[in-house]
């Protein structure tokens, strides 16, 4: 199903079947997904010799 973009006076919307979402909200959701993926992939800065971290059962 094709995604249609249309504009009304209150802003720009993407229309996909029963789903209608404003471009602003779609961009925010996309940004959140990017942040989520980056949180999984980016290394967390820490000292590898840090002895203060320990496994917990």
């Amino acid at each position, binding site marked *: 199903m094709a995604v249609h973009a249309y504009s009304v006076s209150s802003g720009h919307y993407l229309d996909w079947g029963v789903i209608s979402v404003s471009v602003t909200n779609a961009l925010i959701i996309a940004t959140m997904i990017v942040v989520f993926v980056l*949180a999984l992939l980016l290394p*967390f800065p820490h000292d590898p010799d840090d002895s*203060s971290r320990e496994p917990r059962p």
Partner: protein
Amino acid sequence: MSADEPTAPTAVAGSWTAWLRRRIAGLVPSGQVLPDRQPVYVASWIYVFGVLSLASFVVVLATGIALTVRGSLWWHTSWVGHFVNSMHLWSVELFFATMVIHLWGKFWMAAWRGGRGLTWITGVLLFVASIGTAFTGYLSQSNFTSQWIAAEGKDGINSIGVGAWFNILHPAQMLLWHVALLPLVVGVIVVWHVLLVRRHGVVPPLDARSRQGQGG
């Protein structure tokens, strides 16, 4: 020890204070309320979003208290009021964004494992209660936006049969839900959720055991 120094109280059988003391002391294992050591797998950005949600919630509460004290004329007409009002809005936006990313991370690592089912359930309740709190906040802006939201939403609320008790066309009722009742509900569930996290510990990644077995 001299005779004047206080001694630890001894439990009296049937004492409700002794029972309550034992329950409070047993809520979280010793040293885990505010730990200064974390498991190695917590060194990941995905584990940051829970505390980011908590930090956003603190800003929401602080700015909300300021708005409550000063009132709608202040947040509509003064530049300080506009600033605090915007802080309140954007901390709510960050609260939801970080909470949803926290939810995604916990869902994909099946965070209900290891006896953490109630932690997951309280997180779900927190999400739902937060949506209700935010909704009543949008209804309490005292502008045309809140009026439009109330007019658009009333049929939905009436269709589920709660309009007589939760009347979104009633600004005073919505404001009191927003500043008194719902923040208390969200606050209690936040404390409950954090206590459960401290009680059961941060959930390990799905492959933590196998990686540890490989020396990873």
